[in-house]
């Protein structure tokens, strides 16, 4: 196969990979949904242009671009999380080697929910027991405001939050020696503004009775409320994937904690300029 075909085929592979991700709704593993249409249209255009080039028997001899496309195709192949049923779905929330960065697609969730184990539920003694629906966290009659940690952190930071509001949030457990010393865990959700490369995870500290029940990187649903601490600070830490920012102005006081096998349709909260949309992301 000559260089002409290899070049065009590699570009086609890249464009088709983008189209496949777009059609499957899996581009959210990489970029904010507001860029999806633009990227899919770009991929269509690239396919069209390459088809024209092949018809005209033209090709641009650009080895660097060839290598770049090849790297992109390999990177997608390495990082893509298949939506087919597989043990990885369970591992995402149970293995200590799982990574927050690994996205979970909606189809994975549907399949996983079907085989989901009974959730493990803990009622915390650290706060008053609140009324709650027993199994369906999506119940419309729930008195808990279903929302997300980054939006809550914004409300707390801007001092707009009503601390008596009962809330329900999902997040991933963060453990560290410093938190352990205080009998706390961190509960965090990553926020994406443009693409996964700008990932920032926002966290609240949460006092718990038994640290041993809380495994680093497990996903949980917490119902409870926020308690004002009066500490007007952010604590920042960092690992190789992202920054982790603790909103120390408030503690998350749990009344009910539920472990979930597959936590959320997508672990990322995509920042939306409209605060109502942002608030309703769960």
């Amino acid at each position, binding site marked *: 196969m000559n260089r002409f075909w290899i070049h065009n085929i590699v570009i086609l592979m890249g464009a088709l990979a*983008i189209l496949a991700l777009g059609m499957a709704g899996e*581009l959210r*593993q*990489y*970029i*904010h949904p507001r*860029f999806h249409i*633009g*990227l899919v*249209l*770009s991929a269509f*255009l*690239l396919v069209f*242009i*390459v088809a*024209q*080039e092949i018809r*005209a028997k*033209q090709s*641009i001899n*650009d080895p*660097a*671009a060839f*290598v*770049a*496309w090849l*790297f*992109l195709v*390999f*990177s*997608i*192949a*390495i*990082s*893509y999380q*298949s939506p087919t049923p597989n043990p*990885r779905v369970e591992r995402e929330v149970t293995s200590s*080697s799982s*990574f927050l*960065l*690994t996205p979970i697609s909606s189809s994975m969730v549907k399949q996983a929910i079907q085989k989901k184990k009974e959730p493990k539920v803990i009622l915390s003694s650290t706060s008053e027991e609140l009324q709650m629906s027993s199994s369906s966290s999506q119940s419309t009659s729930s008195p808990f405001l279903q929302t997300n940690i980054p939006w809550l952190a914004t409300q707390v930071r*801007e001092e707009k939050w009503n601390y008596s509001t009962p809330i329900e949030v999902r997040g991933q457990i963060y453990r560290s020696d410093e938190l352990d010393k205080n009998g706390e865990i961190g509960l965090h959700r990553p926020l994406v*503004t*443009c*693409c*996964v*490369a*700008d990932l*920032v995870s926002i966290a609240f500290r949460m006092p718990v009775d038994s640290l041993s029940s809380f495994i680093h990187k497990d996903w949980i649903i917490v119902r409870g409320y926020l308690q004002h601490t009066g500490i007007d*600070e*952010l604590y*920042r*830490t*960092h690992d*190789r*994937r992202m*920054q982790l*920012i603790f909103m120390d102005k408030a503690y998350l006081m749990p009344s009910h904690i539920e472990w979930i096998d597959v936590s959320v349709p997508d672990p990322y909260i995509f*920042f939306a*300029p409209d605060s109502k949309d942002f608030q309703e992301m769960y």
Partner: protein
Amino acid sequence: MLEALSPEIHILATSFASLVLESIPFLLLGAILSAVMERYLPNHWFAKYTPRNPILSGALGMMLGMAMPICECTSVILVRRMLAKGATPAMAFSYMLTATVVNPVTLAATWAAFPYEPQMVLWRAGAAILLSGITVWVLLRRVAPDSMHATAKGLLIQPNCKSPSFFSAVLHEFQPIFSLLALGAGITVIVRFLLPQSFWILLQDSPHLAIPAMMILAITLSLCSQADAFIASSFTGISFAAKLAFLAIGPMVDLKLIFIYRKYFTTKVVQILVFTPLILVFTLAMIIEVWL
């Protein structure tokens, strides 16, 4: 797919793919606009219809950003074409350096990210205009305008290609800049991955080092100008001046841009485009830190 690979490889691959995928529509848009200009704009259109006075044409270049809000990668492609079509270097480079900041999208994002410091919007826009103005002035003083025009035209000549079709021209524009963006994204991802924890502690604990540290961070992260305000605002322990330094330098100098500059401009132009903003941003931020 390929699940046996280590989590570190997975992180690198995801970050690389996300950076490149996010940029593709903007690069393609730049390539299309450039091809449209090449095909439908008469050769000396800019020379005929835009002012030749450096101050006026520079101001016009800055204002173009309000009408055409684009990302930094797109603007580099357009600048080359603008120069080839007779635009003054003052106009072309002013547009390139300010369009990514002084536009409604970026300014609205900055306003949203700094609800308690709305003055950041004015400071950011003002800094971009000031930096752009001085950088272009240095450029005009140190590099002959004719050589910039000649370089731009030279890069656009396609000796082996007999009147390529419109789409072929788009691909011809797109491919080289895509490869440079991928190279820059790859280096960015690796550097970010290797950035030690101590760097972040330094940011929190050493206010005097925060300005250069935030500038290094902006260059390393290579963030889109729409996203960088949200990242900057999350550094609540950092001074206003350091955050402004982060926001001012990022859209003008970052790792992927340096590679793109290297492809399209002479070494002397690249040196001015990189070092002038670096010195100016550092000086401006230090002045704000000390006196304001």
